[in-house]
């Protein structure tokens, strides 16, 4: 068959790098998934900073982003529009979720709010199952499908999109918090709510904004990864948990920590499934979560921000 005569030549070319070849491939795979986990982890962090609660519906925002973009693309086949439309729709969902489910009970203890977000996650998943059914859907890659060669490894243009756009979003987020008035106000709220209120910052508006921002980040992650992994109504739960592990590993609320946590977990997963056994893939993220909670509960970048 066709593959037979080609194979031996290929193998000779990479002989010197034979041991390194798979490692680079695992790294690419890990960084791609890790970039998505990082975006989700940042969503956890932003909401934690403004409210001190964990929003377990964060993973569902990723799923909603992917599914909305896929639907939009079916109506009007333009990827940039599907991307922006998907992010906009999910941002709205995040804002509404905060307004309708969390604000009415904002004076309750954090644990009550956290349980509400768990309920929210179940609700979003059920809603998605009713809208889109149980089938998986695909989204075409942003640019082409021809694999690129990088030394001994191969990657798709979509891998570059995920890593590149993910990095850009993180930079934009950092700039937003550092240089804009609204961003600074949000940071002020996270340092000290009482003091922020005293200087005239509308705290509840900042909380709402943080939900919108987190939803937008999650949605962007979902749309970026959809061409690689397909979109299904129940993809959110696992991604949410991985993102949560990443957030804890990096230190809740820290941007650098979230990114680092996401990338570490992504790469650890890929290495574990490549070098040990693919059965350990999901176990790795949660093993890391447990180890961090035992040894360093504040995370890598935790402590004071």
């Amino acid at each position, binding site marked *: *068959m*066709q*593959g*037979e005569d*080609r*194979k031996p030549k290929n*193998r000779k070319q990479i002989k010197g790098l*034979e041991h390194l*070849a*798979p490692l680079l*491939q*695992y790294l*690419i*795979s890990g960084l*791609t*998934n890790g970039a998505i986990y990082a975006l989700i982890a940042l969503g956890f962090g932003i909401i934690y900073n403004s409210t001190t609660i964990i929003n377990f519906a964060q993973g569902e925002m990723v799923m909603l982003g992917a599914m909305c973009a896929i639907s939009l693309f079916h109506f009007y086949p333009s990827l940039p529009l599907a991307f922006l439309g998907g992010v906009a729709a999910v941002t709205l969902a995040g804002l509404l979720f905060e307004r309708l489910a969390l604000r009415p009970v904002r004076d309750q203890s954090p644990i009550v709010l956290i349980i509400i977000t768990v309920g929210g996650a179940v609700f979003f998943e059920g809603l998605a199952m009713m809208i889109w059914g*149980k*089938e*998986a*859907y*695909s989204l*075409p890659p942003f640019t082409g*499908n021809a*694999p690129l*060669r990088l030394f001994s490894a*191969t*990657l*798709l243009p979509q*891998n570059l999109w995920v890593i590149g756009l993910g990095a850009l979003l993180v930079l934009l987020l950092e700039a937003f918090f550092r240089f804009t008035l609204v961003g600074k106000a949000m940071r002020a709220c996270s340092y000290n709510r009482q003091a922020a209120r005293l200087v005239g910052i509308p705290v509840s508006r900042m909380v709402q904004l943080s939900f919108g921002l987190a939803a937008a980040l999650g949605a962007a992650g979902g749309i970026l*990864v959809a061409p*690689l*992994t*397909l979109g*299904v109504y*129940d*993809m959110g739960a*696992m991604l949410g948990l991985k993102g949560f592990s990443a957030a804890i590993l990096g230190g809740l609320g820290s941007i650098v920590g979230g990114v680092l946590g996401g990338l570490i977990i992504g790469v650890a997963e*890929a*290495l574990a*499934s*490549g070098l040990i*056994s*693919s*059965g350990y*893939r*999901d176990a790795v993220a949660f093993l890391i979560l447990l180890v961090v909670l035992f040894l360093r509960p504040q995370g890598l970048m935790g402590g004071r921000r």
Partner: protein
Amino acid sequence: MKGRMIVATLLAAALVLSLSLGGCSSEKKALTVGGIFSITGPASYLGEPERNTLQMLVDEINAKGGIKGTPVRAVIYDDEANVTKARLHAEKLITNDQALAVIGPSLTHTSMTVLEVTQKAHTPLISCAAGVGITAPAKERQWVFKTAQTDAMAVSRILQYLQKQGLTKAAILTVSTGFGISGKEQLEAQAPKYGLQIVANEVFGEKDTDMTPQLTKIRGTDAQVVICWGTGPAPALVAKNMKQLGLKIPLVQSHGAASKKFIELAGDAADGIIMPAGKLVIYKQLPDSDPQKKVCQAYDEMYQKKFNAPASSFGGYAYDAMQMLKMAIEKVGPDKAKIRDALENTKNYVGVSGIFNMSPEDHNGLTPDAFVMVKIEGGQFKLLD
């Protein structure tokens, strides 16, 4: 508000009672056929067409005056691919619904638990799942039959094909569910017979979304072909990942991927993939001399008309189960033990999934010929041999 709820509940209860009493007092008691399928949940792609098909056939039988004048009632439950639910539904079908026979479940592991219940209750069960252990050994599975081709046949069919192509080294990549484990066992057991050496043996989770690590390992071996055993979206991702890695050796998928949905999900990565499939997917390309062509066409047209979607081989399992059950009841009447004997003696029934010849030693009755090898070209299945 509370009072109203109670009234409503009482009303509903009264309604149910009167309905069930009414059913009992009617002159001709309907024959009850039970169905347990994974209509929702991860295996809905199996259960949904199976449910549709069973209901469609029962409606058609009743429109033609029932089986020998007795109407048929289908009681269908959804097990959501959950073993516990499947078992509960089986018990309900036998004790509450007085089912004459049960069709389903859709999956191997749900079938294994349901058959314990139906065996004890001496009720015929016609499973729609692939696992070879459901009906083998047939001596211990007196009351169990199945219409889906076993994975052992799919494996023999693939290995025959690879041997003809002169391939001797394969990498296998299987899903960690019952379907994948059974496929893996069969591949490992049968490969030596066909002179095939398994040089890599990898596994993936049903919901995994990135198989590049496993495929990278396979790339480092001298495999000439990759055999992937899975169902649902994961096999489509394997195809995509192989393209991503620039892995140019041929990919063979199992019959679990033989559906239009697979082609849709894998996109242009689907081109060139080889797999065994039931004849339904390519019945239009069969020669007219093939006796299954007519059956497949009739089923496909009937299904299209009713559900506005193409028929799938999965629905075909329920089709064959109901047709054979109908033939058995027509022959011997509504008696569980006699129905079992009649099912066991089914000979030359030309179905959607193959030509069935049951015997006391074989409660599936199919041979590897029930599969054809197909190749995906330009988004279409093409008959290979």
